[in-house]
């Protein structure tokens, strides 16, 4: 008798615990910034779906800064909402449904793995605009994609790394073996080689966008293997921590960490999502939103380079600035030939360039990259 009473108490207790936890989570993730229902008349509702926490100090923080820029620019004409820590799985479909039900007219999803659910929702709700960062171009008329030519900035940060290395070995802590990441590593390696032709970029795959422990371990093992500059393509600053502990230089990715990592910081490829978000939300307000596959670049100000650290010398800074200007002017193409792959096969001849389609499906490493493009 006593036992069954205890069991009942346990069940009730664990349900209660579960419920509390759930409520907390809702509080944490369901953060409607302007008041939910008392919205000003005519305000357009816009929503963002993030794969990580807004405090990750990298990818998601950058997107959330973009959302804040929208609020800043459009004031009470817009009402923004965000959902953070949404896993790339079946959950996202329910999150999108909720957002549509809440009356959001434009929904931005900021991780590759949200693609399938976004596509399904776009087909189901033709009156809502869907936008997918890093997504695959498609033919659904209310489903756009957007991203930036990070390779341009990565080439430039590679130049800083090439000038900084003394051992001639640069370690790259890479997330997943997908075209986007391979393209970035290649651009980085080409930047390295432009100032230091014999330097090698060694790649270790983490197989996650965000696994700080493994990212740090990967950086440490690269350093132990002789790398004296560390680069990363994932979302956490953990490789920078490893670099800091070992006193070697670091080029980050998609966030400016120059303050917290002053001793080791070189620079980083960064994205500024704000202007694009503002433009898209504005077009929904004006009623002239049109589907597109936006690919921003340095010339647009969509991608850029974070401030240089003290380890970058004046000569290198000048070289990088000059190269950046050439990219802006359109006189320099990061993937302009001659470009060889690891086996020495020519991928682009002198005077030609790797074409855009090939760049978007890249599955090979350029010469001078030490690693397996199929992952590991």
């Amino acid at each position, binding site marked *: 008798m006593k036992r069954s009473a205890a069991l009942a108490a346990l069940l009730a207790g664990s349900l209660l615990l579960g419920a509390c936890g759930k409520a907390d989570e809702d509080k944490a993730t369901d953060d409607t910034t302007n008041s939910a229902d008392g919205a000003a008349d005519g305000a357009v509702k816009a929503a963002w779906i993030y794969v990580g926490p807004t405090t990750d100090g990298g990818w998601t923080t950058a997107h959330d800064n973009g959302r804040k820029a929208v609020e800043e620019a459009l004031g009470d004409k817009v009402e923004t909402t965000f959902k953070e820590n949404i896993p790339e799985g079946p959950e996202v479909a329910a999150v999108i449904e909720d957002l549509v039900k809440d009356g959001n007219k434009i929904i931005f999803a900021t991780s590759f793995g949200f693609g399938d659910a976004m596509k399904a929702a776009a087909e189901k709700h033709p009156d809502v605009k869907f936008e997918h960062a890093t997504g695959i171009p498609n033919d659904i008329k209310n489903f756009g994609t957007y991203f930036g030519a990070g390779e341009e900035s990565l080439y430039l940060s590679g130049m800083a790394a090439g000038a900084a290395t003394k051992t001639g070995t640069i370690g790259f802590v890479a997330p997943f073996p997908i075209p986007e990441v391979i393209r970035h590593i290649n651009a980085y390696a080409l930047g390295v080689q432009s100032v230091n032709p014999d330097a090698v970029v060694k790649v270790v795959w983490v197989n996650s966008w965000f696994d700080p422990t493994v990212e740090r*371990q990967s950086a440490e093992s690269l350093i132990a293997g002789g790398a004296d500059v560390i680069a990363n393509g994932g979302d956490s600053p953990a490789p920078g921590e490893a670099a800091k502990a070992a006193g070697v230089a670091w080029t980050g990715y998609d966030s400016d960490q120059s303050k917290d990592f002053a001793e080791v910081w070189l620079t980083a490829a960064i994205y500024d999502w704000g202007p694009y978000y503002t433009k898209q939300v504005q077009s929904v307000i004006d009623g002239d939103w049109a589907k597109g596959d936006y690919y921003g670049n340095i010339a647009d100000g969509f991608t850029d380079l974070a401030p240089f650290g003290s380890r970058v010398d004046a000569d290198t800074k000048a070289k990088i600035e000059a190269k950046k200007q050439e990219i802006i002017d359109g006189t320099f193409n990061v993937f302009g030939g001659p470009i060889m792959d690891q086996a020495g096969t020519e991928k682009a001849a002198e005077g030609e360039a790797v074409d855009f389609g090939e760049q978007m499906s890249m599955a090979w490493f350029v010469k001078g990259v030490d690693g397996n493009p199929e992952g590991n």
Partner: protein
Amino acid sequence: MNSNLFIVIAASAVFYGTPLLFAAMGEVLTERSGVLNLGVEGMMLLGAVAASYISNTASGPGWLVLVLCLLGAMGAAACGALIHAFAVITLRVNQTVSGLALTILAGGAGLSSYLANIWELKDPATHQFGKLDVFGLKDLPILGPVIFHQTMLTYLSWVLVVASTWYLFRTRAGLGLRAVGESPQTADSMGINVVRTRYTHTLVGGMFAGIAGAAYSLTIVPTWVDGMTSGAGWIAIALVIFGFWRPDLTMVGAYLFGALQGLAPTLQARGVDIPSAVLKSLPYLVTVVVLVIMSSGSAKRRLGAPAALGIPYEREER
């Protein structure tokens, strides 16, 4: 010499094994009293978030802040342990379910993330446990990087391994604790307060888990990250079995698992082409194997599991 593959792996085994060791040692003490606490992962996350918060907000000399961080981490995790203790010792509910609930509450459902959110934890911890150069011996061949170039937490864990082994097997209180875990009825009739013993050791186990969490947020990933312990709490629970409920053997297991965790990136960086998915799953694979072996009652007894582990104690049922 010291960049030799084996030495690099040994050094990282100790570094990454340290939080496992703390958490597993705490669980050894808890389980020795007959309480199974599957909430280790959740308690670690509570410890990690508390340590991160204190590190970024407390002011004062660095060493003092770090001590406060550890105390805060221990306190936060002990609060989690207290929920479990109350549920399973006082209310006598199923220990497995209560422990799971604790991990879900603190980790999966997001209490730790919620706290991190309202505390706005996003910068690297201001005060961290850095690697020390003990007696200036960090470059000593072989032993230098493994033994003399670790963080203060590693040295603290060594002291605690010795202390808790001594406590368990050489003191009267330790004997009482083991008696409670083996046969609470007998212990009760000998005049040992079963409830108090179980409460104390569940809370102490929580405190150890808190330090383990702080090892993540102040050393390994010195920035708060949701779910940063990524399953280490479960490995710690398996380690208790692996170490036959003895702190000294648990230490061996912790470093073995630490080595397995670091193996994937290390081998990749050396150009060894073994799929990293295989290497990364090794610690969990070993965990599953250990749990399967231990699932039979007779094996458990032979390997030294406390006989009353997981069984609520009710006086009137004598």
